[in-house]
């Protein structure tokens, strides 16, 4: 089963998850990974340089020559047109990357910490606590995530729709849904490693068991976690957009948010005003597409049977790539599949 084989040490650069996989990939698989990485890079760069890129502020309603016109078709002053409220569509799309980025970061950080912690504790201690946590995780899993997000947004922010309130409620609700995912990965890993010989031996020689557990579990899980990250990130964006679309979004003067802009665009579409809906929608699609492409490629590369065969035969898979398969990767890939249904 778990062959913690002693492969030659790799440089730090090579061990950075994505870089390693990029080097490992070939052909179309590399193409998909690169495409995904490019989209994600554009997204990140846009978020960082939004103040420079955006022609106007996200809540700007008037320029040097008076109020912006409302619902104006794309023109030289407003490259992607203006909304019903008079916002510049291009600026809101660009500023929206910052909001999307924030929600991803908050969601992932929360999910990792809580999910990893609970999974470790649950798997390590076992017993009644473990059972309860497992049942609770299942129960939470059954709750429609978007509705959970609505409830949580009300509980957390008192229904207020400021930037942080909106981001936190989307992030927390996504966290609640994703904790069971991280929880299960980490827990399964913990259970498996707990039974491993080297942990037993560590116990015998009296070293700190929990430290060993933590190190080994995390080391092994780092190969599966990026996959969940990417899904977690996509879901966070989609949930934020869904919240915005249902009217629980972020106040437009507090931040730009694509779901909210789409929500405001509903009545435009039937009047043939397409630019207010199309661009924020495309922004969501492209970002999620980029992130998911990266995730899918990483998934394939972690699985020897899905990985495109390399031309050179001799190169052994680096340490750890095989170890996860029996207890880890594939199982979790499956779980990820279930998550994808987000009707």
């Amino acid at each position, binding site marked *: 089963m778990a062959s913690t084989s002693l492969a030659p040490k790799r440089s730090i650069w090579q061990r950075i998850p994505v870089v390693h996989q990029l080097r490992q990939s070939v052909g179309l698989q590399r193409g998909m990974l690169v495409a995904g990485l490019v989209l994600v890079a554009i997204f990140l760069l846009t978020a960082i340089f939004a103040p420079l890129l955006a022609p106007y502020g996200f809540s700007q309603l008037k320029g040097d020559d008076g109020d912006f016109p409302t619902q104006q078709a794309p023109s030289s002053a407003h490259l992607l047109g203006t909304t019903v409220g008079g916002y510049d569509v291009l600026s809101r799309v660009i500023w929206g990357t910052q909001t999307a980025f924030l929600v991803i970061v908050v969601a992932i950080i929360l999910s990792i910490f809580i999910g990893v912690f609970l999974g470790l504790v649950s798997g390590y201690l076992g017993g009644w606590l473990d059972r309860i946590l497992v049942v609770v995780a299942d129960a939470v899993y059954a709750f429609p995530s978007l509705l959970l997000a609505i409830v949580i947004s009300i509980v957390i922010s008192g*229904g207020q729709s400021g930037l942080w309130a909106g981001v936190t409620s989307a992030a927390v609700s996504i966290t609640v849904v994703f904790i069971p995912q991280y929880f299960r990965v980490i827990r399964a890993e913990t259970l498996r490693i707990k039974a491993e010989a080297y942990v037993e031996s560590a116990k015998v020689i009296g070293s700190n068991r929990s430290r060993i557990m933590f190190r080994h579990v995390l080391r092994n899980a780092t190969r599966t976690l990026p996959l969940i990250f990417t899904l977690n990130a996509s879901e966070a964006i989609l949930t934020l957009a869904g919240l915005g679309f249902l009217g629980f979004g972020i106040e437009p003067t507090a931040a730009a948010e694509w779901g909210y802009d789409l929500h*405001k665009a509903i009545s435009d579409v039937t009047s043939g005003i397409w630019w207010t809906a199309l661009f924020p929608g495309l922004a969501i699609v492209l970002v999620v597409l980029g992130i998911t492409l990266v995730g899918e490629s990483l998934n394939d590369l972690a699985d020897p049977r899905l990985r495109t065969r390399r031309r050179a035969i001799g190169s052994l898979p680096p340490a750890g790539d095989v170890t996860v398969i029996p207890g880890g990767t594939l199982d979790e890939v499956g779980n990820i599949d279930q998550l994808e249904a987000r009707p």
Partner: protein
Amino acid sequence: MTSAYTKTRRTLAVVAGTAAFALVLAGCAAGGSSSSDGTVAKTLTIGTTDKVTTLDPAGSYDNGSFAVQNQVFPFLYNTPYGSSDVEPDIAESGDFTSPTEFTVKLKPGLKFANGNALTSSDVKFTFDRDLKIADGNGPSSLLYNLASVAAPDDTTVVFTLKTANDQVFKQILSSPAGPIVDEDVFPADKLATDDEIVKGNAFAGQYTITSYTFNTLIGYKANPDYQGVLGKAKTDVVNVKYYTSQSNLKLDIQQGNIDVAFRSLSPTDISSLESDKKVTVYHGPGGEIRYFVFNFETQPFGTKTADADPAKALAVRQAAADLIDRDALSKNVYKGTYSPLYSYVPDGLTGATTVLKSLYGDKKGGPDADAAKATLEAAGITTPVKLDLQYNTDHYGESSSDEYAAIKSQLEATGLFTVNLQSTEYVQYSKDRKAGVYSVFQLGWFPDYSDADNYLTPFFYNPTDTEAFIINHYDDPAVDKLILEQGVTSDAKARAKIIEEIQAKVAAQLPTIPMLQGDQVAVAVKGVEGVKDTLDASFKFRYAALSKVG
């Protein structure tokens, strides 16, 4: 499904039902886009995004439910087409037989559609029931002045009131607390379900309901037995389709899948339909008003703040009033579907003025930054003034966010204010507002009955033992006194004068700043007539006035 049709109806009902069935089918065969032979169509389809909560008048106090109840239940008093004042509906007459006794005479021989007689005991039953159930979502609070009801004989009802000479009580009889229900169908101590009501055929308004799918489709049929002030229905069968999205409603009226669309289309939809040759957009006076409220305790320089100063607080409110550009809001945000509102009583009601126009801004209705600056300087306030402005997105309409972004922009334009804009989900919003969390906040109002009183008492009547619903700690005993006075002044002219005086007094203090008055907007395909007749200051949309030719 909550289909009302069952095989277990009483024989009479079955016959009626079958007839309705045939009519419905006939209507459908011709429905939609009927041939243009100049005859009046038997069927009319109306679309709306209203939501019904319950058909039982004791259990609902919202526009969507009242819109339905209005078609099918009789009222003692009602507003005739084109008027804003009430007249006896199924009643023959109503008079104060003593200062606290309002006696109503019913027309003889009234019947419910199920054949049950409609007598004074049904009326007594209705109001007793409403007060007894006092349902959490019901309108029983409107009956604040009703002490008891008596039915000495079949056609006489005596309402005993708590305060004498209440001029508003007739209006209340036309409000959501007013629909008369059948005592043989409705339980006395709990709400009836929609199914029970439809199966019981307990209707006596202009229409009866023949088929009912909750918030999806309601089938109406004209009630031949209705003898009230509004007259018989012009179209025999009316189907009302319930939409959840405005844009779908808009598409369907545009494509002719429905004949009339009423409430609510977005401003964008309406302006786009106005240029569509296949439909006509009708505007009528609207009772809905939009305004924002200052909390006298927590607003800048409010009584509970560290630097409390009533004069400065007033200056802040006045400066804000100086800066608001109602025309811009009306045109840019609402595309003309809301009109500027310059007083507390909206245009179209007896006693309405435009007092704010002459007091603030450029005195002609427009904004004036210099006036605002002068006001603030005169009060010794250093600018910019920080204002926390709260609004809500899910209760007062989709466009609220655009409206308040524009208001923020207007207030900040010349640097006199910095506005921190926040929006909050409705239930939490109501809670926080009551707890005094918000210093300046948005509200909206849709009237219970079309009388100036309904725009004054709930807002500004703040005697010691009770509190107005806006809870902003505004209290002016002189206004309280005048409000009481207008309620019992029976001379119409004298009453209008008092109402004007109240508006002037309130306008000087600005506990709220009224901004917009919503038009009633209906869109109809060509050939539909009578829309204008019912878009009146009663703020009740009666399907019975509509007909379709060709």
